[in-house]
């Protein structure tokens, strides 16, 4: 059996990142778009922890960074959900295609 190394984890986190980006661009539901952003942030967390464990284990910078990212992601999601609820009240929908008042 192969022990998982840095490359395996980096591969997973890069895949998660691009799944998140793909989801952000293709999904039309606002909550799903927000979930895609969370995927991106979690891939970053994985990156930080993997780098910290395998490459720079003498200091804890990466671990701390990922804790702060988790906290900030929660704050960001709270504000985003509040805005989406308000959008739902005015538009009766959370589909981005319905929010089309502002155009060129």
């Amino acid at each position: 059996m192969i022990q998982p190394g840095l490359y395996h984890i980096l591969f997973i986190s890069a895949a998660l990142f691009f799944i998140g980006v793909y989801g952000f661009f293709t999904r039309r539901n606002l909550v799903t778009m927000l979930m895609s952003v969370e995927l991106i942030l979690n891939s970053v967390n994985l990156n930080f922890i993997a780098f910290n464990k395998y490459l720079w284990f003498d200091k804890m910078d990466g671990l701390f960074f990922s804790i702060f990212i988790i906290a900030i992601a929660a704050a960001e999601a709270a504000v985003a959900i509040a805005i989406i609820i308000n959008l739902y009240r005015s538009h009766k929908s959370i589909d981005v295609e319905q929010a089309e008042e502002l155009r060129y």
Partner: protein
Amino acid sequence: MNDFLTLMKPELALTGIIFLLLFIKIGKGMGNERLLLLIQVLLLLNFLTGFFFNKPGSLFDGMYLTSGLIVLQKNILNLAVYLISLLFANWFKKSQHMPEFFILMLAALLGMFFLISSGNLLMFFLSLELATIPVAAMANFDLDKKRSSEGAMKMILSSAFSSGIMLFGISLIYGATGTISFTEIPLQLHGSTLEVLAFIFFFSAFAFKLSIVPFHLWTADVYEGSPMAATSFLSVVSKGTVAFIFLSVLYKVFLPLQMLWYNLLVIVSIATMVIGNLFALRQQNIKRFLAFSSIAQVGFILVGISGSSIQGTSSVVFFILVYVFSNLAAFAVADAIASKTDAEEIDDYRGMYKTNPFLSWVLALALFSLAGIPPTAGFFGKLFLLTAGASKGSYLFIIIAALNMIISLYYYLRVIRAVFMEKNENPIEKITIEPSTKLALVFCSAGIVLIGLLSWIYDYIESLA
């Protein structure tokens, strides 16, 4: 302890004001007029005390840095927020949630102060989020308008996405260098492929925040949808801050990758100027027009940033100072008109000079300054930016920038022509504006004229840079 109090004075003062407002909001509350007056006095005091008892230094093991230049940048931002509280007094008095709006605005300003002072990628990321999340909430403050919530939605999603991209870049930088401190990163950068990739991710997040082409698409929608006070905060204070930190990140942290970022800057700044100008040409709505003109202005700021360190820094700080006065004046005039008559189209402004000479003159001065016509300060701002950019020796780039200034003249003058020369059967009625707003408009106009003529201001900035 003493060091802590003097070095972090701007942040501590702001925190004090935020808590005071929170307690007032939780407690009995006050009438909007009295509370607005209190806030204005507090912000004025905050701005004035910013000039005293400053000294350079660093705190928390280099996480928090301050210097003469950083204090000056914070003072410029303080001034801009004080002016916003005066210029949009009319809107604030009518707003049902004025204390919350100021709490959010000052919280964002606090984040921007920490952002300018940050000496560490963790601090940088935290303060950048503190500086953007409240702004998205501010954009939603016209609660019953569909446009406002749509603009806020676009802002929060694009800023969350861009911070995700930036974080991915930061994690790669951490992986490549093993440190997140601004002083240690340049020692570890050698220009490997991973570092270049990380830098491009990092750069694109800055491009989102500064609305550099091709990441500019959210700008016009957010500007049009938000209440005018939030728009002006976003376009002046937020952009100014990101430009300031962009300077120190590029010149200090990514100095080893200088060739890379110079070429990137040249390409995106040409694209930003050209596309911002071309879209501004066809706008009819005054807010969208100002949004695209501000995109074009960012292109010129990038020309300045591409120059050498000292000239680049001083010209950008000087330009932001001028930009505060001219852009805030333009937004305030547009807001005064839109709030009284609902007129937001440029065609509605025809013949305005007959009925509102004061507002027309202020608007004309502001637009002249944005276009860069002498003797307004905007001319000197653009001149210094282009000179700083020319110091690298790529004259073709500077010629393209200068040609873009000529294109921008067309659309700025189109508004002025509508205001002063075109005839209209029923122009906008006579608008009475608040005394405090009038005072601030006079102050802005004086700033637009005088900052360019008083040469010691630029010398002072250059001595700090």
